[in-house]
């Protein structure tokens, strides 16, 4: 967003808060709006997705000391929770939560970036422009999901002792000190698929492209796709689960498992989770 753009469209941008019904998916997006559905009942907490993300997106290994200082760079992490009302033992097992950038439609990080380094793309991603980022870290402070990761160190010089750089993915930049990064929904894969489709005068087909985490997941707990296409699996899942991208405080039937995390903060996330199920009679 340039200053001129901002001034020209002042009335649009000065809106106080997003309100219900402000948007409509099809007006907002003509071709693509990428989204996910993640089934917490079959996610086993195995971390295959996180390792795949390291491999795909050139995430640096930071080591024990920096990990302890909170400098870890895992774009997707598996949170593990114990039940609050647990007695002596966790009798219903653990709760695992894969947490990555939720690609919010009203991303709280976007509005606070002083240089507009993080903004929305026309396929509905919350993008991070590494060249523009000045490292203010406001976005990270404002992210309710805490999924933005800052390069406190010059990882290219330390994280990949030779010949490990040979394994880096040439489709993804290696980020340097002083900038913010986060899950991109594997934008490099999306862009490749989109341009391939464009050369064939068509849209990307459902299932034609998946992010690295989705591809790796042994239980296929994550579904990915374009929710503009009502026939895509992800769109059908969102509909079936009565989750609407532009609604907050979703009202739905008791038996329906879909929800979005911290949706009452109204960031309108693009990741729908499906509730974990437990057989209470067991």
């Amino acid at each position, binding site marked *: 967003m340039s200053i001129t753009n901002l001034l020209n469209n002042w009335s649009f941008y000065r809106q106080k808060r997003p309100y219900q019904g402000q948007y409509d998916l099809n007006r907002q997006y003509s071709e693509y709006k990428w989204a996910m559905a993640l089934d917490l*009942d079959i996610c086993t907490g*195995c971390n295959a997705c996180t390792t795949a993300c390291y491999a795909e997106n050139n995430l640096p290994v930071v080591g024990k000391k920096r*990990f302890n200082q909170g400098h870890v760079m*895992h774009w997707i992490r598996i949170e593990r929770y114990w039940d609050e009302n647990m007695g002596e033992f966790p009798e*219903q097992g*653990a*709760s695992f939560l894969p947490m990555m950038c939720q690609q919010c439609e009203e991303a709280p990080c976007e509005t606070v970036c002083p240089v507009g380094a993080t903004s929305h793309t026309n396929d509905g991603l919350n993008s991070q422009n590494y060249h523009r980022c000045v490292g203010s870290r406001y976005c990270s402070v404002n992210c309710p999901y805490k999924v933005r990761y800052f390069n406190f160190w010059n990882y290219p010089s330390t994280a990949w002792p030779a010949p490990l750089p040979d394994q880096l993915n040439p489709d993804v930049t290696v980020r340097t000190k002083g900038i913010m990064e986060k899950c991109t929904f594997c934008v490099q894969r999306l862009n490749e698929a989109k341009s391939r489709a464009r050369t064939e005068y068509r849209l990307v087909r459902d299932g034609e492209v998946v992010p690295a985490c989705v591809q790796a997941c042994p*239980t296929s*707990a994550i579904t990915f796709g374009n929710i503009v296409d009502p026939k895509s699996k992800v769109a059908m899942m969102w509909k079936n689960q009565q989750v609407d991208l532009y609604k907050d405080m979703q009202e739905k039937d008791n038996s329906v498992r879909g929800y979005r995390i911290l949706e009452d903060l109204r960031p309108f996330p693009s990741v729908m989770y499906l509730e974990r199920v437990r057989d209470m009679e*067991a």
Partner: protein
Amino acid sequence: MGRVREGRVLKMEGNPESKISGGKICGLGQAAVQVQYNPDRLTQPMMRVGDSLQPVSWDKAMALLEEKTGPKSGINGNEFAFMTGAMSGHLKVLVQNYLDSLGSKNHFVYEALSPAVSFAANKQIYGVDMPRLHFDKAKLILSFGSDFLGTGASPVHFAKEYAKFRKAPRGTLIQIEPKMTMTGANADRWIPIIPGTEGVLALGVANQLLKHDDFSKTVPADIVNLVGKYDLDTVSSITSVRSDLIGHLAGLLWEKSPSLVISGASVEGHVHGVQNAAAIQILNRILGNVGKTVDGQAQSPFPQLAPATGSFASLKAMNDGMGAGTYKAVFIYGANPVFTTPSFMGFRDNLRKVPFKVAFVNAVDETAEECDLVLPIYTAVEDFGSHVAWYQPEGVEITMQQPLMDKLYSDTRSMGDIMLDLVKQRRADEYKAWPNFFSYLKTAVTNIKPAVKYTDTDEHFWYDTLSHGVIHVDAPQQQIAENFSTEMLDLPTTVNSPDPKFPFYLIPSERHYFRDGRHANCGWLQESPDPLTTVVWDSWAEIHPKTAASMGIHEGDYLEVSSQNGTIKVKAYLFPGIHPDAISIPLGQGHESLGRFAKGVGVNPFKILNPVFEKNTGELAMFGTRVSVKRTGQSEIVVKDEGPVSTQMGRKLVVTLPADVAQLSKEI
């Protein structure tokens, strides 16, 4: 499979044509590229000069091999031993042929975490090493310590099966084990138990079931009689499982048929491991699950390619031989026994007694450090090969391995090529048709053609095979037996009564990305938080909060954990998913070698294991060691991913829905 760009492999993916993985991949598979580009890879042959290993040319290395083990060395078959890790496929055949050429029977297959006890139990009962399990047909899975989602035969395959099991109509998983595994963490109900008493609990449940006419006819009268001893109170006091739960389990099994009852490492790693597992399997018999959720795998038409999965007996035989000075030369490939053997065996000292020791490795590990010749071999992404997994869900699948890239280092060689050279030392004529392992493999694989009824040319078959990456062979299903006898179920009456000097049961747990420690030198895996504790780059001791409180132990306190065979110093992590009388330390860390990401990280619990053996198989009883726990007064922060609070604090992060409310069948 992998993505390759400009001759470099960049990322590994699962092969969608595999019936085993279904195109999925775990973190270990991903990490293959980190083995490939590991900064600590061995790039040239090394030879012992005095106390250290010095670089040497391949010519010199092979000349030395020839001198020490070639036809002119005068070595006879009994004086030679070849230790390998688990092996299958054509490289295994070649190793076998080499040993034959030497007239040696000493192929010692050793895996520290082998399925030998479970195979032995299955063999007694079902007449096969491993039956086939149908998760998707089971309404209830009752698992006694089987961590099928984390470790074991094929976590990727079982994760896929597990996902089917959880779809509508959603199956229920109950896990009973002394320390929560990844599988336990996903259970609808997790029940802690005193280690080693799982069989008693199973017989307690059987006792409840056999009270009903429906079930009492399923087993012979002497078994009904024996099971009759296991009444609720007895079982509850031995196992520490509440008696109402025992009845509850029986009720659930009755209600949710067919079910599937399975057992795992924490059941098998005891003196009575085979009986413990058999007592659990009798539930499948009583419940009529055999033939429904438990049946036979396909009978492989290629027994020579079948996997050798390794055993402790074979390690022991080799260790004894070395100690007695029997061997003039030993080769070691795919195993790191100096790291994985308990101190009491004195493996390192025995190895030192062998005059000529050769290791074939990707990186110098603890065992290679002791060797006289260390040969750098190709990694999995540089080499050809064929593999057969020991769990085959559909027919028999031969996995083809082919190079994803040219060798990274000019001074490394293919293990197959080396083996072929070695075989040719004595059988040059027989093998002269094959200049290298590639050509040998091509011929051997092409020989499979008739078995898969492929009608096109050999050449087409070979390229087809490589492009699919797997060969599926339809093979008849193995018939499984159902032998149960009272002797099989002969469980000790006082299972594991506590020892006042060593009050804790030690649980050396297998981490899903570390296994026996061979993968510890990958940064990704070190930094991948342990799923249950979220600890990274370290070892830790899991102790129940209640026990910790009674001993004044806080997270990060250094504890001295001692068995009769040694002491390790390790930080405490307070973990609710463990029996209060047990303490668990993960395996795989504590390397003294292997490389920068592994060396000096954490501790190695293999070292303090006691000489306790499973009585039917002679396997090391991994869960049979008792320890004492002492605070040292020192403490240090535990580096982990979780925050200071381990619950959701009332936020709706992971929401749980009762199964009877959810309507999975209406979902997409």
